[in-house]
Each structure stands twice: as C-alpha cells, then as structure tokens.
C-alpha cells in the first residue's frame, strides 16, 4: 500500500476542519456570547484538541490496523460491523453536508440561476477522479492546497483592518464564562470530523509524528477560526455578524484597501472550492473504504462511483431548503449530532479492549 506522510496527514486535518469554519463560522451565531465568540472559539479548539489527542493516541497504539479492524477485533464481527456501519453513516453524512454546503454558497451568492445539480456534479466529478487515484493523491493535493488556504486567509483578514474597531470586542466576558462555555460546545464538537481521517492511520508512513502534525493542523484551523471571528466582530459589530449567513465571504466582499484593492471574493471562492474538493474527495474514498470493509469487499474502489452518485443525489434531495442546511450546521443542533460519534466510538472501543485485555493475558 502506498504511503501518506504524517505531514500530509496534518494538512488533511487542517483542511477538514477549515472547510466548515470558513464558510459558516457558526460560533458567531451563539447569541448570548456576543463579542466573546473568539474566546469561545479558542476554548472550543482547546477542548477539541484534547479530544483529538486522545483519539489519535488511541488509534496510534496499533497504527497498522484501521479503526474498523480494531473494532472488529474488540467486539467481534457482528457488533463490530454495527459500529463500523455507524462510522460509515457519519462519514457519509459529512460528505453529503459538505457537498451541499459547497453548492449552497455558490447558488445563493455568485451564481443564483445555475442549478444546484451543476455544482454538485462538477465537484463530485473531480472528487471521484481524485478518489480513484487513491488517498495518497488526495493527500498530495491537500499538501499543495492547505498552505494556499492559510495564506489567503492571512492576506484577507488584515485588509479589513482600517475599518475594524477594537472596542467592538468589549466588554470582554460581559455575559460571563457560562455563555462562553456553552458557545464553545460547537467549535469543540466540530473536531468530530477528524474521526473520518483515522481510517488513514495504517497508511501513514511515520505514525510517530502523526500526533504532532495532527495537533498542529487542528490548532491552525482553530486559530484561524478564532482570529476570523474576532476580525468579523471588529469589522461588522456583533449584531450584523450574527445575521450573516456566510460571514467570511461577506467580509471578502466588503474589504477595501486604498479604494482600489477590493472585490476579492473570487479569492474566497477559490479557497472554498479547493478545500471542499479535497474534503469531498477524501470523504468519498474513506466512505468507500469503510463500506468495503463492512461488506467484506476486497476492491473497495468499485464503490466510489455509486457512493458519490448517492451522495450527490442525497445532497440535493435530503435538504429541502437553506433553512434545513442552516439548522443542521447551527450550534443548537450540530453538537448533538456530532457528540455521540465523538464520544461513543472511541469509548466503546476503549471499554471493549479494556475488557478483553486481561482475558487475553490469562489465556
């Protein structure tokens, strides 16, 4: 099996995390936190990173096995298959949501009259091709794209500086720590997306470094989210920020530097397309890989096309309108969808292995 480097793994962590962040920045929508959204974002990232640390360490104990194989061994084929299916459902759900979010921004802003199908089809066409080439190829694309995204964010945010107002961030902790903690739930639970990436563990060439690179990737994404939240609040003020559907996209439309450097939303669309592409390609490959394991199909690549087709179809049909997509990615709902996966999956595995271990020693 070809190999992925730990460095590429870290960049994939970054890309997976940044995708939802740059388009929605849902932490801003926590009404009662106001100017402290950035603190909530930092806090959430910290908690999320701890979860990520535990998760990666758990699977690094036996880096040569995939999460599904570990689960099968610990729980047996039936229960293992059940948990593997749950894992698959989550990855597939994330795939659908990412596809839909990608098309959603494009149809609601720059190209309203183009049918959703066109964007879903184009994104999936490229992603299926990349997924067929294997995760190593996607990882290399990710290695190329991740720094570009980091760079474009670093360029865009300071451009708004002349219109930013530091006092918009005050009062600090005006609503108290309680509200900040509640708002931090979302940025903490979005780290659940990373569990999809753990399927790649056996492919990582130098698993020793995975923990470090994964944490750096997650940290960078979290820092961008926090800095972007702070910049948006300083630029728009709290009430307007809470009204924006695509806050960072709006900022790229509003920043102006010296009255000539403006309308840089194309840069954002590039960033958005690139990160969505890598994420969708990766999720298609992983879901086919996991499904292949559940169904005991050796060559899981044959599943790529049918799964992509299903994801594309469901991405367009499963959500009737913008309001549904918005609800699913809102801090009121998303954490409660994500939390069971984030907690349940590693917990069951940990407990099962703990129960089995002493018996193994005795025999």
């Amino acid at each position: 099996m070809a190999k992925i480097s730990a460095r590429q793994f870290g960049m994939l962590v970054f890309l997976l995390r940044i995708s939802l962040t740059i388009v929605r920045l849902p932490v801003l929508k926590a009404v009662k936190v106001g100017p402290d959204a950035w603190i909530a974002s930092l806090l959430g990232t910290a908690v999320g990173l701890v979860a990520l640390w535990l998760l990666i360490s758990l699977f690094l104990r036996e880096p040569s096995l995939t999460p599904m194989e570990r689960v099968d061994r610990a729980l047996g084929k039936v229960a293992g298959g059940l948990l593997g299916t749950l894992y698959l459902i989550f990855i597939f759900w994330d795939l659908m949501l990412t596809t839909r979010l990608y098309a959603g921004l494009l149809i609601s802003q720059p190209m309203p009259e183009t049918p959703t199908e066109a964007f879903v089809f184009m994104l999936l066409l490229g992603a299926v091709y990349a997924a067929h080439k294997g995760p190593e190829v996607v990882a290399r694309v990710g290695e190329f794209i991740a720094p570009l995204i980091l760079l474009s964010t670093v360029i865009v945010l300071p451009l708004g500086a002349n219109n930013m107002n530091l006092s918009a961030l005050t009062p600090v902790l005006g609503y108290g720590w309680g509200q900040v903690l509640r708002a931090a739930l979302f940025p903490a639970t979005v780290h659940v997306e990373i569990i999809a990436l753990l399927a790649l563990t056996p492919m990582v060439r130098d698993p020793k470094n995975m923990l470090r690179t994964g944490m750096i990737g997650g940290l960078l994404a979290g820092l961008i989210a926090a800095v972007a939240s702070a910049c948006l609040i300083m630029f728009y003020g709290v009430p307007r920020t809470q009204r924006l559907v695509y806050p960072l996209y709006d900022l790229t439309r509003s920043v102006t530097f010296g009255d000539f450097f403006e309308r840089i939303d194309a840069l954002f669309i590039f960033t958005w397309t690139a990160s969505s592409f890598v994420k969708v390609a990766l999720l298609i490959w992983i879901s086919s890989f996991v499904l292949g394991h559940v169904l005991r199909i050796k060559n899981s690549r044959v599943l790529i096309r049918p799964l992509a087709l299903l994801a594309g179809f469901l991405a367009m049909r499963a959500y009737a309108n913008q309001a549904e997509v918005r609800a699913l990615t809102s801090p009121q709902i998303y954490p409660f969808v994500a939390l069971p996966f984030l907690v349940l999956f590693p917990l069951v595995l940990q407990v099962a292995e703990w129960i089995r271990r002493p018996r193994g020693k005795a025999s």
Partner: protein
Amino acid sequence: MSRRGRGLVAAACLLALLLSGCWNRRELETLGIILAVGYDWDEERQEYVVSAQMAKPQAMQTEAGGGAQGPTAHVFTARGKTVFDASRTLSLVATRRAWWGHVQALLIGDAAARRGLDALLDFVERDGETRPLYYVIVTKGWAGDLMHLRASPESVPALGLVSLIRSAGATSTAPSARVFDVSRAIEAPSAALIGVVGASQGTASDLGGPTREFQLDGSAVFNKAKLIGYLDKRETRGALWVRGRVKSAILPVPCPDEPGRHIGVEVIHASSEVKPELDQKGKVRVRVKLRVEANLGDQDCHYQYVNLDRIEQLDRVVGSRIREEVEAAETACLALNADCFGLTDRVMQRFPSYYERVKAERRHWPMVLEIEVRVRATGAQLKPPKPK
C-alpha cells in the same frame, strides 16, 4: 479505440459542455450597468420608487478632439412593494438588463430614510450581485430628482458624486459611509450619521448654460435606523470631532487683535479619546480628549502670530472654536434626542450592567471635553505685507 481512449473522448465531450461558459452568462453589451441608484418611498401609494442611473457606453466614448456626446447616462424609474420588486420592474422600461455590481452610490430620499434603513438595505446586503461597498448618501428631498444632476468636470455624474463623497474629508462636514458601515452603525445604540447631498443653485457662465450640480450638505441623523433630523455642516463637524473622524478642516478663528478679521487654520491631524468614567456621585460621565494638530494657513489680519509668546494664544482660540462646534452639535442633537457622538456605545462597553439599568431613559451623557491644540507650521511667510 482503446477503453482509455474512449474514456478520454467522453471526458472531452463532457468538458466541452461545461467549458463553453457559465450557465447564464451575460455579455457586456447586453448589460445595463447601473452607476447610481436612488431609493424613495411613496407614502400615498405605499410603494418604493427606485431610480437607476444606467450608463450609456456609446456616449462615453470620446472621439479625437471631441468631448463626450450628449448625456452619458439615462435615468429609469420603477415602483414596487419591495426594493427588489421595483428593481426588477425596471426591466419593463430599460432595454438592457440591469447589472447591480458596479453601483457607485446609493441615494436615499427623505421619506424612505424616515421609514427606516434597516429593511431598505436588505436587498443590497442579501443579494449576490449587489455589493456592500456602495457609498450611501441621504437627500433632503426626493432622491430621484437628484439623479439628473451633473457633477462637473466629470462626464459621468455618479462617478463625480463618489469623488465628492471621497474627498469630503477635506472639510469633514459630510461623513462618508458605505453600505457595511451603515448596517453596522444603525444597529449600534447611539445615533448614526450619514452624509447629505443636495443640489447647488445653478449659475450661468460663459462656458455654458446654468447647470445644477451635486453639493454635499451636512449630515442626516438616524436613530434606530430611522431618519430623525439633519445637522448642518458646522454641527456635523462638531459631532465628527468627538467620533475621531475629522480628517482635515479649515477653521476660521477670529484674530485676537483685530476684531472682525479671521485667521484660516488648517487641521492636519485630529484624534479623540473617549473614556466613560464615574464621577464623585457614582454617575457615569464621559471624558473626551481631543488632540488636534493644525497649521496656520492664511490670515486676514496683520499681527505676526509666529512669535514665541503669541503662538500659544492661537492654540487657545482654535481650541475654543472647536469647542463651539462640539457644543453646537450637542445642542442640535439634544433637540433631536439623539446621541450623535457615539458615546452610548462606549458606555455600554465600559459599564454594561449600568447601561442595562438606565438604557430606557438615557440618550445623553454628560461630557467632559478636553481639547489640546498644537498649531505647528505657519507656512512660508511670517505675516501679510503691510503698505506703509
């Protein structure tokens, strides 16, 4: 053909479908580029009236030796129950499809502004084709009437108007604001100030008949997104001093030694520091520190002020002139019951719980004004020539 070859051909055909262009592409010559747009509210018919100034590209082409031919833009007007409705109704009169991506200025009529900017700007902020970078400006009458004005020497009126708005910092008497500034300002607890444009009285000259031109004229005061009144140029600058938004200004201050004559002092740099604090009785008051750097630009009197013992006297008279402007603004805003200085925002940030208690009845905060003026440069001569 090999399997791979067939696959390539199929992919090429598919790509040809996608690469031929965007789904609903619009060629430049079919677009009617809107340069300025006016929003009005017709109270009688309960409708929005949108006036759009559409560029006439043919008229903008200048031939060698000749100027632009005829008017460079045409104004279309349409009505509707919402701004979007009215904007789309334009297609019944305009031969080209309106393109909202390049609008330079958004003029808002008095009636529409009194009805409220919150919902009025919704279309501009929501739509994908519009931009949050439009300059917003208020007119005291019907915005549609101003769409026909000229902005000499520019041939395109909308571009001239934007130049006026952008250079308003030279006098700091008409605050410039873009859509995103406005939407931020109208949600703040204090009042929002937006520049006002009107028409100059046309005067005939040898160069052509009388023309009416755009003229900036003070600012409009908005409370909770609704227009509640206007400030004149002097009052506007008074409010902008405290908001720290004075970029430059010429202040005519009376000559200390020769009554009836003035010195023209140019403000080079001004900044303000707003600090809410508690007084001895535990009440909130706001300490405002203005730091102003100025140059002596000209004088209409003969005393030489460039003297060690006299130049500081200039600092004082400039300071009291600024204080007068701020006090004029305070009086005008007290009458409008609006916080033009933006103090409420700061009080809310500094004393959030206190603000929650008193916000229902309070719009004004006692202000302690400290003005520090430094007149630095005095130009190339010490005093005007004096015939003996």
